[in-house]
């Protein structure tokens, strides 16, 4: 009995199993980010408490009563603009979904056209390269003049911010279709429809997805710019803008945390989708 216990324990010393093994494996993955984030929050809180900056510290999320309520009750709805942050975020997400879907449809369609047609490419590429450098906020006044209406203007700002990576990557994906594949289509006298669905789209798909992934981040980044033009409608961008107008600094911090978390989730979602599609390739 004694020997067997000894041998078991000596084996577990060398290669732990069960809980110790789990701890050993997760330690490396979780401890450094935990220290990183904890250190950052500590530094922030200290500099706020010591009065080094005017920005409230992270603890203000809990100490400010108004913010604490918003933090713990994201689902309340007292009508109008007095809603929980989850509901604000949902409003923003549906707006982003609309602008982003439009950007995806137009971006992929124009990207394919530009990728297939060299003359069109040369005609439009300088324009695209120029427009994609324009910041979301700069589009706001233009969108308002263009549409004379808040709702479509907000969608347009999201659309015009997020379309370029989709368009440019799709065009590149189509340009990169190997000549061999085109030759196969030529020698088989493949119909345009067959070439499109069986060769062009699958071949360009990884590029299209890269564009879609970059763009979903941009679309979400544009939400504040988009919602500044929409006073009086619920949304996370409006919430932050409104909190700023009222100098509720801790509310702004909470809103920013929501934006960052949702952006991260959206990006992970696209990575997951991309991996699934790539696995199907």
């Amino acid at each position, binding site marked *: 009995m004694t020997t067997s216990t000894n041998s078991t324990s000596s084996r577990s010393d060398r290669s732990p199993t069960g809980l110790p093994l789990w701890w050993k494996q997760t330690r490396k993955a979780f401890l450094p980010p935990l220290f990183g984030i904890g250190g950052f929050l500590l530094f922030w809180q200290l500099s706020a408490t010591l009065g080094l900056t005017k920005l409230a510290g992270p603890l203000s999320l809990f100490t400010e009563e108004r913010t604490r309520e918003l933090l713990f009750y994201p689902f309340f709805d007292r009508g109008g603009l007095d809603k929980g942050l989850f509901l604000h975020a949902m409003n923003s997400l549906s707006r982003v979904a609309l602008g982003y879907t439009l950007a995806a449809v137009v971006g992929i369609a124009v990207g394919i056209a530009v990728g297939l047609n060299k003359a069109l490419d040369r005609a439009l590429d300088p324009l695209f390269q120029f427009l994609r450098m324009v910041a979301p906020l700069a589009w706001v006044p233009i969108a308002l003049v263009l549409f004379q209406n808040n709702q479509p203007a907000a969608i347009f700002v999201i659309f015009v911010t997020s379309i370029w990576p989709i368009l440019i990557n799709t065009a590149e994906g189509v340009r990169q279709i*190997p000549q061999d594949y085109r*030759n*196969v289509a*030529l020698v*088989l006298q*493949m119909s345009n429809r*067959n070439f499109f669905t*069986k060769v062009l789209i699958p071949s360009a798909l990884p590029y299209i997805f890269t564009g879609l992934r970059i763009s979903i981040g941009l679309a979400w980044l544009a939400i504040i710019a988009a919602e500044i033009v929409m006073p009086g409608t619920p949304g996370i961008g409006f919430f932050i803008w409104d909190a700023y107008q009222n100098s509720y600094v801790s509310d702004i911090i909470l809103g920013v945390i929501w934006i960052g978390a949702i952006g991260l989730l959206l990006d992970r979602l696209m990575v997951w989708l991309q991996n699934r599609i790539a696995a199907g390739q």
Partner: protein
Amino acid sequence: MPTPDTLARSHAAAGAAAAAQSPLLRFEQLSKVYATPRGPYPVLADINLEVNRGEFVCVIGHSGCGKSTLLNMVSGFATPSSGQVLLDGQPIRLPGPDRMVVFQGYALLPWMTAYDNVHLAIDAVKPQLSEHQKREIAMEHLAMVGLTAAADKRITQLSGGMKQRVAIARALAIRPQVLILDEPFGALDAITKEELQEELLTIWNTQKCTVLMITHDIDEALFLADRLVMMTNGPAAGIGEVLSIDFPRPRSREDIMEDPRYYELRNQALDFLYNRFAHDADAAP
């Protein structure tokens, strides 16, 4: 004085008779000039050749001599600068499935399975067939190259030799009149290469399509071909000599190697390639 009607009929009859006897492919005074920044560069000049129905012809020559250009004018990917290539008396203008190509880099669609690649070709060329027939043809041709078990594997999961087998199955499944192979076995190891050569011969024996094949390998050409076309060096390369290889078919490698004519032919080809038209690096473009 014949009426226009009888004239037309006799003309048609003569045409039909000629088609039965005349070669399937005829290269007539073919030449190709490429425009380069330093002026026009003649790749091929004055190519004249006839290829009979069901003949297996290999083309050999040093790199840069325009072998691929020559075959591209048969497949329709390149157009002659002067002269023409006639298929059944009709000048070739565009690529088409009657002249199927086995591309150098296989050119299979990697996101599809082996079966789907073959099926796609059948579907594009013979859309009128029923799905059942398409499936049967695809499986039959995959079986010919020994890929029945791997039919549902993705191209990315296949080895180089298996990929080339799929490419051959795809090419033959659409029953081309001419099969064009551009150095099909160049990237394969020696053993796979020999296996594939034998498979190609077996299939060719059953289908009897006309084959044009570029190779760098004299032994490969002697084993496979009825005739070996040897090209001179560019610029303005032409056909230097054509060797007739009349070993009886079906051929076995062992029998051919024991035949004294094999070494005669081999020496002739070696002499042509390495003495009379030794590779001159400056001549390449």
